[in-house]
């Protein structure tokens, strides 16, 4: 379970302090799929960064499975991400000098998982990339790169999957495949999936939608 209480984020810009996320509180139950929507600059990615422990809130607390991650140091956060959180980015962010298979391997190697290579190959097969493991990111299409990124996010079987505009950089057909993939891995393994998206279609398939505007949570809707 993810819980946010009165979380805000203020940055200092040239023009003075700028609040990009106003104090917000909500909970995301285990196994749910939640879409965070809103126009550009509404604070969606900021919110996701706070959930992933990639950023620290200015006020309030973020808890994951009852652990307040706001108080954790960088090293503990890195460990937490390695164990509990998988992240998928809009721009994929694969390591360019590693093959697809190795990109998937890295989180498992860091966590000291035994038999990592077989599991990485299985994950690649799961995302439909059988036989592409030895390719470098530059030899893959955008959709394929995003699928490698999803396989990497799933490597350590994390209970939480965070995705930042996962289809934002893909054409609609490829985007649909990626959405289907994310939904499937979420459904099959009972993971919590938090998606930041512009895509109304993607928002439609989520269990809940949290809408942001100008750094405020303007609505939280349950669908099922």
């Amino acid at each position: 379970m993810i819980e946010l209480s009165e979380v805000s984020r203020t940055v200092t810009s040239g023009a003075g302090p700028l609040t990009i996320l106003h104090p917000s509180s909500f909970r995301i139950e285990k196994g749910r799929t939640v879409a965070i929507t809103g126009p550009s600059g509404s604070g969606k990615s900021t919110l996701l960064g706070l959930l992933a422990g990639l950023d620290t809130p200015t006020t309030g607390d973020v808890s994951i499975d009852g652990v307040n991650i706001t108080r954790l140091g960088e090293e503990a956060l890195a460990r937490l991400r390695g164990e509990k959180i998988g992240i998928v980015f809009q721009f994929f962010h694969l390591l360019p000098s590693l093959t697809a298979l190795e990109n998937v391997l890295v989180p498992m190697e860091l966590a000291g998982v035994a038999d990592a290579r077989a599991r990485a190959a299985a994950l690649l097969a799961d995302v439909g990339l059988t036989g592409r493991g030895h390719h470098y990111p530059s030899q893959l299409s955008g959709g394929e790169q995003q699928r490698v990124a999803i396989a990497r996010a799933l490597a350590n079987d994390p209970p939480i999957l965070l995705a930042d505009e996962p289809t934002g950089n893909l054409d609609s057909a490829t985007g649909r495949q990626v959405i289907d993939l994310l939904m499937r891995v979420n459904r099959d393994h009972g993971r919590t999936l938090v998606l930041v998206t512009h895509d109304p279609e993607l928002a439609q398939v989520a269990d809940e939608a949290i809408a942001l505007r100008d750094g405020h949570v303007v609505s939280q809707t349950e669908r099922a």
Partner: protein
Amino acid sequence: MTFVLRMAWREFRSSWTRLLFFFLCVAIGVAAIVALRSVIQEVRETLTREARDLVGADLVVLSGRPWPDEVTPQLAAYLAEPRVLDRMEVVETATMASTEGRAQLIELRAVESGFPYYGTLELQSGRPWSTTLLQGRGLVVQPELLVQLGVAVGDTITLDRQAFTIRDVVVRDRVQGRNGFAFGPRVYIDLAELRATSILTFGSRASFQWFARVQSDEVDALTADLRRDFRRSLVSVRSWRTVEDRLGRNLTLAENYLSLVGFSMVVLGGIGVWSVTRVFIQQKIRSVAVLKCVGASSATVLATYVVQVMGLAAAGSVLGVGIAAAGIAAIPASVVTLAGVTSIGVTWSAALQGMAVGVLVSLLFALVPLLEIRDVKPLMLLRADTAPLAGRRGWRSVSATLLIGAALVMVAVWQAGSIAAGLYVSVGLLAVAAVLAGAAWGLVRVVAPLTRSKRFALRHAVVSLVRPGNQTRVILTAVGLGCFLILGVRALQSNLQEEFSLAVGANAPDLVLFDIQRDQVEGVRTLLKPFLRTVPGQEPPVVPLLPLLRGRVVGVDGARTQLATAEDVRRAGELAREYGITFRMDLADNERLVAGTWWTGPSTDTSGPLDVSIEQRLVDEHAMGLGDRIRIEIAGRVVDARVTSVRKVSWDETQNGGFIFVFRPGPVIERAPHTFVGFLQVNPGADVRGRLQRDVVRAFPNVSVIDVGTVLASVREVVDNATVAITVVGAVTVISGILVLVGAVAMAKFQRTYDAAIYRTLGASSRRLAAMVLIEYGVLGALAGALGAIGALALSWGVATRLFEIAWRPDWQTLVGGVVVTALVVACVGLAASIDIIIRKPLGVLRQG
């Protein structure tokens, strides 16, 4: 650890072309250091050997009279110290050698078995020199004696009523005598056999010497100790490192220059490695963020990239040693021999030093940015506007920077071989780097208005110079520092070469004539005239014959110095020695009046104090000055003299001798017993000197003709070797320095590739892109070159006048040429480095992001 190694291998495997570049840049930096240090070590060893050959020992202790009682026990204790590896006694004295009907003043050198410790004597017969030749009343003589006495090898001559056999003739003898030249042809004799004669008993002028072989790192210290303890007892000490003549000074200059160049090369190599490491780390920032996102700790990430940098630096350093070996092998053998070096190759110590510097500098420069990995915000992967690195520096980063700064200073001290020199150079480099950083700041502001230029290429070139994350500061610092060192080394080189050519220049005499009597002056002048060296188109020179008196100071009554008796003078040390004295109307070419007035005509006084001009040394060392009264004993008579002027003699240009005391001509001094001495330059030609000697001996049997040409030739040879060595080292520095800078500039291309690809996508033609790059890099090169040249001018001035104490001549040609070449090289390298993106399709670059 396995993860770290695995990651290193994966990164190397996939991007080896990019890493190869890094690797080559490190290799070039290290190669430059190794090659230069190897050459310098060889050259230094050769120069050391040659300089030691001239002294014949590491250290010589000399006394102008039998070893005084107060000196003997202390000297014996010193010579028995473990740092003295071996010792032998040598005595030099002047005596008469005769055959039936002929006699000649000779300079006897009495030696013990094993003489000399360094170098050797070449004999006419071709057999190796050995002191056994001297046993059983044997002599080895200089060829002049055969001419003067009309004898041959195998003949006997008489010394002190005893017959000695001439066993061989020495044709090359590099061991210099007590005064640089002798009073007659040199004759070698066994020391025990000299002692068996009565030659040393009658208060004859002899020089008693101890030759010592000393542990190499103790030579300076022992020399200093001996000098300190024997300062007041007429005992002098010299070593090859401290020979106070021109030669010693030139060798010291050459050595200092080589050290400076070696150190500069380390800095240059370091700049290359730094520039490469910086780009390498910058390229890895995104990967660091990704690794952190997937759960890697900062320590793991740090280890991953430290291992990569170290691995590349170590491999690059090994390659660098290989390149250095190949480079040295490419130096033509003729040049190597010219420098007097017999063989040349990479030395172990140079290889180790170069590799250590390569790995250390890479690590040091990589560590600061790598430590900031802690602050890499993985959030940058979510938000494009997040700065990749936190702006403020944590205590870790600050203390690491300080520690690394200290480590770099230690590298500098290690390389320079002296704490003071290392600190001095480090502070100097820091100052130059600060000036360059300031210049970069200024440049960005000065050219900023040009971003509104109507010319596309100019506008975008300026945009590249001023945009955030520009390379202006980095390239200005790297190229500016590089230019500063390369041009500085070049400028010093030309100053030194000029200095060396003066040192053993055309003005040094070949022959010295002694003991010319007053009534022989005209005859000698006439005889010598046809032999004198003439310069075409100039008047034939007048044969320069100077009156020569010998005297000792026996009292001083001065404003600051009071020495009432001869005993007081003796306690003043050096002042009590015998001086050569002359009188003349004019200042010599190598003299300059520094105080008082020079006489305008001869004195007519027959009583009262005589006017004397003293050399600056007496003012500095014995606190004498204008108006002081000095009593000097000349041939048993004490004359009272008053100091009317002080001269500074340029001892470097002693073609006409150098005199501490010069008297005003007048009846009193001219009546004192004196002979004449001549310093001559004769026409070149194999037999000219021999013929002149024969003619002089035949016409004036009492006149000694000493051929200093052979001594001088040895000196000239050593200095010529040093000159060639300096030229070669200077050339290697310039070439490798340029290569290092090419690497540093080219490395920046990785940051330009993406921009160029975008411009290309937006429709910029290849010509436009090329023009942009040329303008941007040309401006950077010209500014860096100009600032480097100004710094080099200051460096060469500072080092020449303060450290080397030689005349400074600005080398404008090199400096202006340096600026032009730098601008061209930087512009061309920038263009060449961008050529692939200018002519290739940009998609691949854009896809890699």
